[in-house]
């Protein structure tokens, strides 16, 4: 795997998402793509409409809890708007995470969505700089 990318990892009942990138934002965005890939092939999802979300960071600046918040925010937007997303752009500062995500409404014929994601869990949750300039962001999803 190159510098930037995503993969799924095994969990018996559910599925784990893992993103890599040169910054936490990139790793988060890749983990989000992995989440979309749990539902459908992201290349089938047109980046047509944009949705913007802003999350307040907790006082302790815990990036792992922020990853769960981020994925849950994305799950919420998918559920309420009945949309799928295929492109994510994140901006993180000390106080908040700003998210832009591009996608389109679910089309059951074209996307053939396999399963709905219920929530992000704290299981196998990890956000870390695994080597200089290479960030990892992962957790298990409940599907």
């Amino acid at each position, binding site marked *: 795997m190159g510098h930037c990318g995503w993969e799924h990892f*095994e969990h018996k009942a559910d599925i784990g998402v893992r993103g890599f990138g040169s910054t936490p934002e990139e790793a988060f965005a890749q983990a989000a793509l992995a989440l979309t890939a749990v539902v459908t092939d992201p290349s089938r999802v047109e980046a047509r409409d944009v949705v913007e979300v802003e999350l307040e960071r907790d006082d302790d600046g815990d990036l792992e809890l922020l990853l769960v918040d981020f994925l849950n925010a994305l799950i919420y937007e998918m559920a*309420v708007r009945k949309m799928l997303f295929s492109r994510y752009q994140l901006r993180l500062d000390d106080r908040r995470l700003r998210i832009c995500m591009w996608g389109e409404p679910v089309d*059951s014929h074209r996307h053939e969505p396999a399963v709905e994601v219920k929530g992000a869990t704290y299981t196998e949750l990890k956000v870390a700089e695994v080597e200089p300039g290479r960030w990892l962001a992962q957790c*298990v999803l409940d599907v």
Partner: protein
Amino acid sequence: MEKSRLERLDETLWSIPAKDKMRVPVLIFADEALIEEMDDKVAEQAVNVTTLPGIIGACYVMPDAHWGYGFPIGGVAAFDPNKGGVISAGGVGFDISCGVRTLATGLHKQDIETLKKALAEALFAAVPVGVGSQGKIRLDDRELTAMLAGGARWAVEQGYGCLEDLERSEERGCMSGADPNQVSKKARERQRREMGTLGSGNHYLEIQEVDQIYDAGVAEVFGLKPAEIVVTIHCGSRGLGHQIGSEFLKKMQKAAREAGIELPDRELACAPLDSPVGISYLGAMRAAINCALANRQIITHLLREVFARFFPQAELRLIYDVSHNTCKRETHEIGGEKRELFVHRKGATRAFGPGHPALPQVFKESGQPVIIGGSMGTASYILAGTRESEQKALSSACHGAGRRLSRRQANNTWEGRQVISDLEQQGVVVRSPSFRGVAEEAPGAYKDVDTVVRAADKAGLARLVARLRPLVCIKG
């Protein structure tokens, strides 16, 4: 599972004795083959649960247990509010009050044999299934509040079903103590368009045949006749429950820290039962139970409408509705003393035995129906609660087959179209919006449900009453 760490107490009971930080032992109900197949993570997670404050008796593990998040799926744990007991959002799960209900139809296989495909199409059209699907029912905020307080009772008042349905449902269709004010705006928003939808994953709607009766007397009490056609619904509290689960998992991280509770796993986040977060979760979780009960009640109405078109004379009578992701206040006898406990059942079914005061009159002698869902294409079972289950596992039994392969493994092993055509060869018509979804839920991805229910029966958690074979499966 590594057997060396277990003490075998009898043929279907294994223990991990309490040591170090464990407050109580772990008790696992399974035969040898199921123990060998069980993930080591189940033992690890069950041991973690035993370290939580106020846990009473043991962490009980059901024969279908598998690796969950925080709690094992197929785990039962009870907490005493007078002993610093806690409530855990992870111990209930995201799909609050996910459950199963079965309805008898009075029809027989020959009545539906030539209509299976047409019935599958009609059900698929009537009941919204899969990702992105929406119900026809839209609730405004006031209606949502009434639904969250009233459960299936509210649904019946709106014209979805009849009063008899409520008698045949745990909590008589309405969980008391629900507090709709504790349900966030976001959770409400997620539910607004999802009433009467089935969801996806392992949720399904099946037409089945009663193909074997193990206990004719109890089957008759339940209203199950040999060779009769029944319909089973498996689904939960939809987006509302998922949102409540996510929100409280986070709130409980902080609440646990503030209460000085040491968490061996963040997913075990919990709050003391008498703390503000604990009380708030209890009110929200009970409202989500009502949402699940209302949802299954509305789906019941939708499928009755479909059956009425095909079989105007058929009357669909509810046999029972059970939930397998809950935390409920119950009275249990511990060491000869009656105590009020909060029993978490995550992937486990309540199994009250004969004479239990919470049961409607009709089940007073038989014990409650315990409905065990199979996976697509495999059998489901109906069992009955036993008296001895109270002593053994606080009146609890298994809930399904449990996964054997992960979704990814299943997707790499099977092809959705092939699974559907193989099942059709076996006489099962499958209708689903997603071939990949079907591959991920292929029958081979699950443990053998037959061995799971036999182990539950042998262990005395519940006893076998009838087996149901699928004929039509609508998969989300």
